[in-house]
């Protein structure tokens, strides 16, 4: 059992949990993820590690309430427990002094991006950050990110804050010479970033989030095509060279269980599991 020691709402439907998991906290590194299962009937879902405190023995993750499991998770309170958390999983990010790094965090993945930015700064990189979301209300960690960045930009899909879309990247990529780009966020966003950085030859690292079950290389549901080869995102990744990733294949595989996921979420709400009393 893993106890939730702190819970925060960062934006509508985006929640942060800090859980007591000293052994995971001890070993966690930026770029890795955990898999949790809320209770014995639950699904195993992967979430990226967004922070850890080795002294307190806690691990932090931030999630978006998109379906049954994340909505159910969102109802848990401080002091409640999660049946099982497995981690850390996946390979840690490569953290070293690359020079001038461009970090782009989209949506809920702004949270783990903050952890990476911290780590990159600690080893001496100059970091330019961009955070993005669909609309301005869904942005979070602006101040924290700004404080760590040499340059800081905001973008939203609808232009309600900062730049509209990511098109603006082209202009300043031409001016600033970046040695590396790191993108974490929705697949479509990472795909766009890669299309922009490729002509400039900037090595671009993306975090792939295919559907996963075990997260340890046993099922193959997380297979992605990278450089024409089949890779398992959970053990070979989750970070890959974005210029080699087949994003369309990934988008297709992420949609595989859409009808079942909708059914599960709908039924749960109908039965009042969401706490609305079946209304």
């Amino acid at each position, binding site marked *: 059992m893993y106890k939730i020691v702190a819970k925060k709402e960062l934006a509508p439907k985006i929640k942060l949990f800090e859980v007591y998991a000293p052994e*995971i906290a001890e070993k966690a590194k930026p770029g890795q993820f955990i898999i949790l299962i809320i209770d014995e009937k639950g*699904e195993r879902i992967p979430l990226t590690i967004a922070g850890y405190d080795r002294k307190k023995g806690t691990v932090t993750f931030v999630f978006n309430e998109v379906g049954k499991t994340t909505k159910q998770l969102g109802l848990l309170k401080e002091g409640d427990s999660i049946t*099982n958390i*497995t*981690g850390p999983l996946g390979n840690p990010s490569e953290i070293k002094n690359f020079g001038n790094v461009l970090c782009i965090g989209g949506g809920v993945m702004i949270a783990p991006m903050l952890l990476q930015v911290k780590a990159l700064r600690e080893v001496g990189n100059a970091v330019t950050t961009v955070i993005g979301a669909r609309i301005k209300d869904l942005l979070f960690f602006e101040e924290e990110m700004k404080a760590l960045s040499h340059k800081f930009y905001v973008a939203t899909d609808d232009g309600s804050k900062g730049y509209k879309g990511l098109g603006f990247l082209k202009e300043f990529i031409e001016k600033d010479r970046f040695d590396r780009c790191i993108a974490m966020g929705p697949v479509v966003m990472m795909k766009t970033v890669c299309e922009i950085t490729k002509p400039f030859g900037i090595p671009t690292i993306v975090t792939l989030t295919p559907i996963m*079950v075990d997260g*340890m290389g*046993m099922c193959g549901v997380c297979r992605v095509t990278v450089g024409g080869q089949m890779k398992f995102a959970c053990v070979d990744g989750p970070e890959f060279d974005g210029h080699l990733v087949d994003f369309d294949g990934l988008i297709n595989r992420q949609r595989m269980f859409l009808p079942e*996921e909708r*059914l599960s979420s709908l039924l749960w709400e109908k039965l009042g599991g969401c706490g609305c009393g079946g209304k």
Partner: protein
Amino acid sequence: MAENKPTPKVKKKAVPMPKQKPEVRRRNFNEVALGYTEEQAIEEASRCLQCPKPQCVPGCPVEIDIPAFIKLIREGKFDEAVKKIKEKNSLPAICGRVCPQEEQCQMNCVLGKAGDPINIGRLERFVADWERQKGVTIPEKAPATGKKVAIIGAGPAGLTAAADLAKLGHEVVIFEALHLPGGVLVYGIPEFRLPKSIVQAEVDYIKKLGVELRLGYLIGRIHTIPELLKEEGFDAVFIGTGAGLPQFLGVPGENLGGIYSANEFLIRVNLMKSYAFPEYDTPIRIGRHVVVIGGGNVAMDSARSALRLGAEEVCIVYRRSREEMPARKEEIENAEEEGIICKFLANPTRFIGDEKGWVKQMECICMELGPPDESGRRRPVPVKGSEFIMNVDTVIVAIGRTPNPIIQRTTEGLAVTKWGTIVVDENGRASLEGVYAGGDIVTGEATVISAMGAGKKAAKAIHQYLMNKK
């Protein structure tokens, strides 16, 4: 005594196993074979000739004293019969159900020459079930030795090693990466062949011996083996991480929706209980026309699970012929009785998707059997120009599994073969001091009983190592 020689009185036919009827069981996940009654068990046991030089015993990978336990059953001393088996095999309820007895003990039984061999597996299962219903007694443990052993992986190899070491008085901790213990017994072999309550009972027994289970610990990521030995205070480590890495065909279209590895499919169905979706949260989608690629136990289990999930038609596509199929004969028969179709001498060459990225067709090529290969089986070779198309909406790829790689990647100095299996000596000792390994991680995909035997052997060697260590 007349008992020693075949007499005309010996019944040639085995007592048949009561089973669920095919038309009923093909749509439920309850156990297919129902087990002998006391009378049936005694009747079957009475056929045994009590051979002075029993042929069955050398056929058993852990050399259970088969005639002795059968004699005890015949005399109605079920308690003593279980004890006899447990001298060598700590998981009889499981082995009685899933061991390939027809290739092991039963293959050698003298009665098999002119009739049915003794049904040793069913008798083993009978006494183990009898004991479980009555309540298992916990054996006495040796006094505490003050030594600590880490077991990695809670499959049959790890569970057996843990039980034996705990009985010898060592402090034992099992680290299992999944959220439930059992290895293939819980995530692979389906409920209708091996009810999960039986695996749970074995795990409970091991816990009662004082073994600590830590679930959700992927060793190699959370602690490495050197860390367990140097920082976490363990005196020895046993690796029983199994062969769980799924193989794919490597043909175009394999990433389309609706194409599962057998492991994914079985993990969803068994470990995550997708068959009870949406009561359980993990979804599974099963189409009307399911094909399973492969010819082993894993293919059979996948096909029979797909049928139970409501598929209209399930077809197994295998590249060799029936004779070469590695699955247990009994399970092939069970599958065919349930209405599963086998298509032999065919192999997929590509998958074709619909506009939504879901598989809709599979192209295959016909095969013919050439001269035997290294495995001694005739090698299948494609027949030029014989491609044909099958309409499918679910594909399950069950063409083999290789060793889980994480430990090997994260343990410096651990000797590994080019197939990724861990190198050990005849006692299960690996190339690093205090490190032992056994089961599928050493042999590649094998059997429950061989994994269990390896766990036992390593436990013995670990015990010696610990007692000699200052």
